[in-house]
């Protein structure tokens, strides 16, 4: 695969009524929260998909992220940070807990099956192969390196937001990203992915 140009920093379209929906959801309006779910489910699912190697856990973890958000919505203060950053923080903690409590994790070879529900814009085999390869490659990084790369290049967040989510200094996050890229590039050269 040859990639010579990349997209610019990923920007989500602003959800105009986001603050209003959050206020309504805080008041117990489940329909308002369902709209927030519709707006962010793809990004949260993508993050979890690349963070966990077991396909079977993705769906469960995604629903847990939104349920946690629903239950703890009072803790989110509108305007302090983007709502999606708060969701990523919840997702990150859930993934950490998931690995901490999971005793009988599957061997990597058995866990690399691409979930059938994570469909691609086109169904080209190459795309499926690339994404699966990327997911496998990320499993060779440390947890912090994975997060720093996924939040940067797949979620498209700026480093200051990533630093807040990971509770680290921005410089530390940059260092994690550079080391992770170097490790990942070696792995991908060996696999002839780049």
């Amino acid at each position: 695969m040859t990639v010579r140009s990349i997209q610019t920093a990923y920007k989500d379209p602003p959800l105009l009524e986001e603050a209003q929906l959050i206020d309504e959801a805080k008041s117990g309006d489940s329909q308002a929260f369902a709209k927030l779910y519709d707006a962010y489910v793809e990004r949260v699912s993508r993050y979890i998909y690349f963070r966990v190697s077991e396909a079977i856990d993705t769906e469960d973890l995604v629903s847990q992220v939104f349920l946690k958000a629903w239950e703890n919505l009072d803790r989110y203060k509108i305007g302090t940070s983007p709502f999606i950053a708060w969701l990523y923080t919840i997702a990150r903690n859930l993934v950490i807990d998931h690995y901490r409590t999971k005793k009988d994790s599957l061997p990597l070879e058995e866990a690399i099956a691409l979930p059938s529900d994570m469909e691609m814009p086109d169904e080209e085999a190459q795309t499926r192969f690339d994404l699966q390869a990327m997911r496998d490659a990320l499993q060779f990084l440390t947890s912090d390196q994975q997060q720093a790369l996924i939040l940067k290049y797949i979620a498209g967040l700026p480093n200051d937001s990533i630093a807040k989510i990971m509770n680290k200094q921005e410089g530390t996050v940059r260092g994690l990203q550079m080391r992770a890229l170097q490790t990942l590039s070696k792995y991908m050269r060996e696999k002839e992915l780049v």
Partner: protein
Amino acid sequence: MTEFEKALQECLYNLEQGDSNVDECLRRYPKHARQLEPILLTSAYLQRGREARPSDAFKARVRTKLVKQMYAHPRKPAGSNFMFMRLAVGLAVVFLALLATGTVYAQGALPGTAFYAWKLASENAWRVVSSDPVGIDLVIAERRVDELIAVRDEPTLYSQALEAYLKVTERLKSEIDTQNKAQILTVLDAQVEELHQSGIVLPQTDQDVIPPSDEPTLTPLSTSTATPLPVLETPQVDLTNLPQIVPTIQVPPEPDIIPTIQAPPKIIPTLEIPPPIP
């Protein structure tokens, strides 16, 4: 930071901002191009991860599960009210703890101290809620006696304590009835004795006078056999036929003899020198 790391960081930033592509970065740093290329390609490659998206079926399943869970765990409509209630309850607990602590501390306060008014207020509250106000007043009277003894050397505080003591004794006297009369009078007598032994003499009051309303009264028998007394007519007085007697005062005549005081004779004592002893 090494020269290579600086070049890598700058290239990653430019790629992120869309200012340049991988080839342009490599041309800018030919010395590090061989090292930079796989890393920059990897960063570009990672962005293809954004193409992964869950299917509609996946989103619908998670949505259904979430809605069920939201109904199972409904949010309280007034989340802020809940927080407010928690805060209010917390403050109330702190307030009650302070009130209890202050009240306990105030029980040892003497006249003239900051907590004395708190002590009196707590005693009033105690008296109001008690089922035995006379018993409480007896306890309060004992406290006033202790205070009187404690401040007897400070005139201002003494008068304040005395006034408080007299007030409670007056109240006790007004509460006397046939059942508690002996108890109250015994306690008051004992207190007077105690004060007296401490050198305190109470001002003369009518404390020994029992209000007539509290005296045992005779009640007529319902089935009286006594013969009723005849009803006497009220004597009529005719004010117009009063005798015209004007009382006069007779002044006794002055005596003609005016007593005089004779001055005693002026006798000058003289000293006689005794003759010398031979």
